[in-house]
């Protein structure tokens, strides 16, 4: 049993219902979940299984319909819009499938965008060095490859020294060689920063690099595996 102070996330009976007219879609049907500090968790599952909804609620982007989510001592399900914004700002780093970089800012500036509003940020150069992009710091997103853009997004996510790093399909838009580089960057920053990392993916091959693997189906967690031996991203067969 892990030490209670070691728990970063705790979700109990989490549900989410989307209503559109008379139609009700149950995206989450009662999720119980815990994540420890520094843990690297891969979330698998088919489209529509609820994994993105789960990540969005945990990340403070969306609200649950029922149940509770705790981040450390904060009950996320009780926070208002402004407090959720503050939560994202102070504690969460996000990485998305389509990078969501600001096209009018260079790589370095995209990272600075976050360090300017963070409480205990690292230096922007440092964050870029962690993902191996110190040489491309002055390029605009349009001048970078997809993999490079995603690594800038990772640098931007970790530059604030977040407690949690949430990645939704970070390799979804990338080919395998590039995807491996991105995963390497993720595992490396997970070690270096010690942030609890949740990675959503379609790609079952990625499971081997995680501490723990969770599988979603039909709004529920249907399987949970703990890896005793973690592989390096470069050892993963794609």
């Amino acid at each position: 049993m892990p030490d209670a102070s070691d728990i970063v996330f705790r979700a109990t009976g989490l549900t989410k219902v989307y209503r559109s007219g008379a139609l009700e879609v149950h995206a989450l049907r009662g999720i119980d979940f815990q994540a420890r500090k520094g843990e690297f968790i891969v979330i698998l599952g088919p489209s529509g299984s609820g994994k993105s909804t789960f990540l969005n609620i945990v990340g403070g982007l969306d609200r649950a319909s029922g149940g509770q989510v705790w981040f450390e001592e904060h009950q996320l399900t009780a926070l208002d819009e402004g407090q959720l914004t503050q939560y994202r700002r102070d504690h969460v780093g996000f990485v998305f499938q389509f990078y969501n970089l600001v096209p009018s800012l260079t790589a370095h500036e995209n990272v600075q965008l976050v360090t300017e509003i963070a409480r205990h940020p690292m230096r922007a150069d440092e964050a870029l060095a962690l993902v191996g992009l110190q040489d491309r710091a002055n390029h605009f997103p349009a001048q970078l490859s997809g993999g490079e853009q995603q690594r800038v997004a990772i640098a931007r996510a970790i530059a604030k020294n977040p407690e949690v790093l949430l990645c939704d399909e970070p390799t979804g838009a990338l080919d395998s060689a590039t995807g491996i580089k991105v995963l390497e960057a993720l595992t490396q920053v997970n070690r270096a920063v010690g942030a609890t990392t949740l990675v959503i993916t379609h790609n079952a091959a990625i499971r081997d690099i995680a501490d723990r693997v969770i599988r979603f189906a039909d709004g529920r967690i249907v399987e949970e595996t703990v890896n005793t031996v973690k592989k390096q991203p470069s050892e993963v067969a794609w």
Partner: protein
Amino acid sequence: MVISPLRRKVLRDLRRLWAQVLAIALVLAAGVATLILGNGAYASLSETRAHYYDENRFADVFADVTRAPRALLGEVAEIEGVLDAEARIVKLGLLDLPGMVEPGSVLFVSLPETGGLNRLYLRQGRLPDPLAAREIVVSDGFAAAHRLGPGDLLPVLMNGQRRDLTITGVALSPEFIYALGPGQMMPDPRRFGVVWAPRSALEAAYDLDGAFSNLVLKLAPGANPDRVIEALDRLTERYGGVGATGRADQISHAFLDAELQALWAMVRVLPPIFLLVAAMLVNMTLSRLITLEREQIGLLKAIGYSSRAVAQHYVEFVLLIAVVGIGIGFAAGAWLGSELAQIYARFFTFPYLVFTRDPQLYGLAAVITLAAAVAGALYAVRSVVKLPPAVAMSPPSPVVYRKRGAWVRRLLNLRQTGVMVARHLMRWPFRTASSTLGVAMAVAILVASLWPFGSIDRMIDVTFFRSERHDAQIVFGTPEPLRAVFAAQDMPGVMVAEPFRQVAATISHRGREKTLAITGRPAEPRLSRVLDAGLRPMPMPQAGLILSEALAKTLQVRPGDQVTVALQEGRRSTVTLRVSALSVGYMGLGAAMEIGALNRLMGEGALISGVNLMIDDARAAEFYAAARTTPKTELIGVTSLMLSRFRATLAENITVMVTVYVVLAGIIAIGVVYNFSRIALSEQGRELASLRVLGFTNREVSGVLFGELATVVLLAQPLGWLIGYGISAAMAASFSSDLYRVPFVVERDVFAIASLVVCAAALVSAWAIRGRINNLDMIEVLKTRE
């Protein structure tokens, strides 16, 4: 009827983008409305006037004489180019209405002969019996102000004699469309009226048996008025003629001309501004729409729609916006036109004045507006035609930004969000520049509409509080000996009395000449003063002449130059005088000298034309009564009454005018700012939503967009002030005439108010867009590729 799918798309686009469409349509509507208003008022006023002149045979040349025998009329009619000539008696009288304390005057005019010139338009009752001694017709405005009608009695003082005249009718005349009493600044129908009486009655009252005091001439088509005037002046010289004038110098005609000129200026300035801004907005909005619909355009082309059909689809979208604008503009133009016609009815007396309903005018406004909208669309639509379908269906190449202006960033100590603002603005320099220009135009319109108030204040301050400081003025029918000053001094309530002498003269210099009254004042005048450029009172020169700057400019003389002065009264001597200095003044043209020196030139002894007075307010009523009954009094001017009338009339119209201009400027500012921000939001919605995900607050994210708006609005302020200042300067120059000069003063508060109004309009737009920023969908933006 089957509506084609593309047509249906146009209608849906219009509904979806209704707010932007409306914002553009309103700017177009402002252009249409000002086109209709300006052109329509111009046409209505000038055509009505022309028709009225024609119907009532308005004269072409006017001349006053002291007293000329009727036999002279035959000689006048013989002058080459004269079609018709009529001898009249025109004399001032005083009102003596019970219950009216303040002095008022009437202008007696002998009734036009049957088939004669300046015929009356009878509105009520009948014309007087030519043989009846006491029957009269009064002017319409005057009758209305005093609620007089046929059958009422009008007590007046004619040549010092009190008479009760019987009103038989109420009439209008083309000669008094703008009925300005002597010495007045604005028509005041309560204190000034025109009274038409049978010639015989006026002959008797003013001792003019077999004589006349005024001539009006109708010229043959193509006749040269200058030659006729020259010949006429030679004939009337012996009879106290002070120089004939053409229509251009006839007061009523000249004021109408000034109004027409102002309308013409408005037509040339306002509609082009609105149409230019609207074209810019169309271009901006359509370009963005086409960028967003790039894939659809590719698809349409791929499935076989021609480039032309797709281009036509977007042109139709713009044409429909224009149609909405034209519809609103027609309604607004017609409504403003009828309001303006009502304002005109307050100043100008026409038998009828209807705001034009000429379909040609409306058609022209519509065509011009459609053209402006299509011109704005062309550039954007060209890209539709050029886009190959295969390229259109693949995602657009990413927008390339450049690192520039690092110094700006260091200087302003910009954060990254600030850098975003700056780079986005610089990435589309044309759009940024045209939006800035658009907002600047809103500022400029306000500056150009607000500055005259400061100028009018300056005119009033200089004219009434520094220069003409008397409370009242008595003008005698004929010059009186100097001792009349003492008589005036003894009147009840008079505290200070100061004489003046006025002599008509033609001043010439190197072929340029001007006929006006030279005013003689005491050496150190206290009540009626002449001011130098620093607004300090100037002593009257013992020898030499002080000319007003406007007159000096007309004659092209400088201090120290010699001018030829041909006196038009008395012995009519011609002398050469030195211009000793120039004075500042805004009303009319002025020439001044010391009263003694002027009397020496005349050689008729120490005479005065009237007295300027300072009156004890508490005893004003007593003074008015006494002044009225002083036999020699022809006219009593009261500064405070004239000024309050002036201010009241102005106040009535200020509200209407300022409201209209504020609305117009607001429409531009809102239209530009709203469209600009919608486009900026559409382009950056994804980035802004991403910022929200990263933990930026709503306020911080709005700040990025509002930062762009604020930059555009701020940059527009100085530019708008500059453009507005330029337009105002041109207006001031075009308003100035011999009647008055408009000092060009733009107070600082004009700039401040203009900026405040425009910033308020920008805030309204920002407020309208805020909801859209707050509702940015964070989750949606993460799932989609741009």
